[in-house]
């Protein structure tokens, strides 16, 4: 099933990927080609087949919930593109009214 340009715009917003001129056609064409190959999965009847999410049987192992060493505030902010007063700085999250 080929992807429409509307669908590309919708998915790009969900993925938080900006679109530049030419991107819509690029994704629509390339993703449609890949999806054509993927559509062969529909040939298989999988009604009675359970899905596999985890291939290796590993019991859920939780360590003891004991406080340990963690990053200092300085270490946590060391890679921050912008930091102010010990916080990460971001553009406005709430729209101005």
């Amino acid at each position, binding site marked *: 099933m080929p992807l429409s340009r509307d669908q590309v715009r919708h*998915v790009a917003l969900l993925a938080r990927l900006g679109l530049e001129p030419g991107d819509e056609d690029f994704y629509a064409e390339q993703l449609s080609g890949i999806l054509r190959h993927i559509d062969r*999965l529909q040939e298989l009847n999988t009604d009675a087949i359970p899905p596999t999410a985890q291939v290796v049987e590993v019991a859920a192992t939780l360590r003891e919930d004991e406080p340990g060493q963690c990053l200092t505030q300085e270490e946590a902010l060391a890679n921050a593109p912008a930091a102010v007063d010990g916080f990460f700085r971001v553009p406005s999250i709430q729209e101005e009214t």
Partner: protein
Amino acid sequence: MSDPTHLTISELRQLLDDRELSAQELLGLHLERIEAADADVKAFLRLTTAKAAEQAQAADRALRDGTAGPLAGIPMAVKDVLCVKGVETTAGSQILKGFKPPYTGTAVQRLFDAGAVMLGVSNCDEFAMGSSTENSGYFPTHNPWSLDRVPGGSSGGSAAAVAAGEATFSLGSDTGGSIRQPAALCGVIGMKPTYGRVSRYGLIAFASSLDQIGPFARSVEDCALILQTMAGHDPLDSTCADRPNDVTRGLHDGVEKMRLGVPREYFEVEGMEPGVRLAIQKALNTLESAGAELVDVSLPHTDYGLAAYYIIAPAECSSNLARFDGVRYGMSEQDAQNITDAYMRTRRKGFGAEVRRRVMLGTYALSSGYYDAYYLKAQKVRTLIKQDFDDAFANCDAIVSGTSPTVAFPIGSKTQDPLSMYLCDVLTLGANLAGLPGISVPCGMSEGLPVGLQVLTPQWREDIALRVARAYELAADMRVEVALVD
């Protein structure tokens, strides 16, 4: 003394123990080799010379004191997806340019603890997405056997570094073949362990249900040693199993009476080159002469593996890569009207074309209304593929095949057609979907370029894969050669 940049870990260890060579001298020889070869090969994104000097000095001390670990003084390259404290780690992406992790991942730390010397960070496809290292956000790596060809990928820099004599061993990660395929194309040994054998703590995630860290090496024994050093339970990765670390068991026991399954579907895949098929057939004959019994097996869902993989891997990647938002680290486009606009600008600018393609594909596959048709369907097909392997292993001890349908291809020849690039992994990605261990060993040449033999075994049976590989190495008198770049 042979050129130490061509030797294996066990050979070097002998020289180090006999005081014929110091760890610092060995480091110096490798830095010279990198200086001479890497302008052409471009295996390294950045060198960690100061760290290496410190580690080599410590190794020399330990060798004198008699406290040296099994990898003391051995030079290694680390793929740019493995976090090392204070060392710029970027996953081959512009979006992480300048990122210095505040901690070191478990696998790398265990190698450091065993005495390994880190030469630098090796190049890879961006976020390990690719089969040629052409998707690196920095520059492509060249195959040391033929500089106009790709080294494979995504761990192409790690494979090329070992093939070019720039490192004795290296680390990669394998999500659909990213260790085994470049190992095959560069003529070195590469191994992907069972899912859960090696801790993923400190590995920048691509597809969490498929990723595993593994080694590139020049001998099967070296490969086993590195894996044994890295493997084992880690409280920092809940998917890393608490199981006996027995990967070197019976390494030299040979293949006498062993049943090796030959999956007919793996010899009929699209694009399989006749020269590759011939080299594999010769390798199978060698294993038969060494006492193994070859049996026909079938993996009937092989044709659906690629399709299932290209839903599951992009879906997981789209989720994992949501964290790259320009807030806590990496590239950030702050000149934006609001936070959503900032995210969208940062991610459009920071991610390359292949990563954006997969994030889009994965987001689409997981989006409302399509989940059942794509993601759930792919997870069910994953069950069928795993069942294929279970059925095959009921009748054999290991499965043998080619690693890649082709030898190394010219740089630029597949970049315009993503599907043709994806087909490079058609023989390797089944092992990731089923969680199996797999190893690739060089088995001759086709058109003057290396071919790899793949050995797959049931989960947790790395010992069998290594044993078959060791038997082949011995029977074929195979020695990983260093490609001379002149």
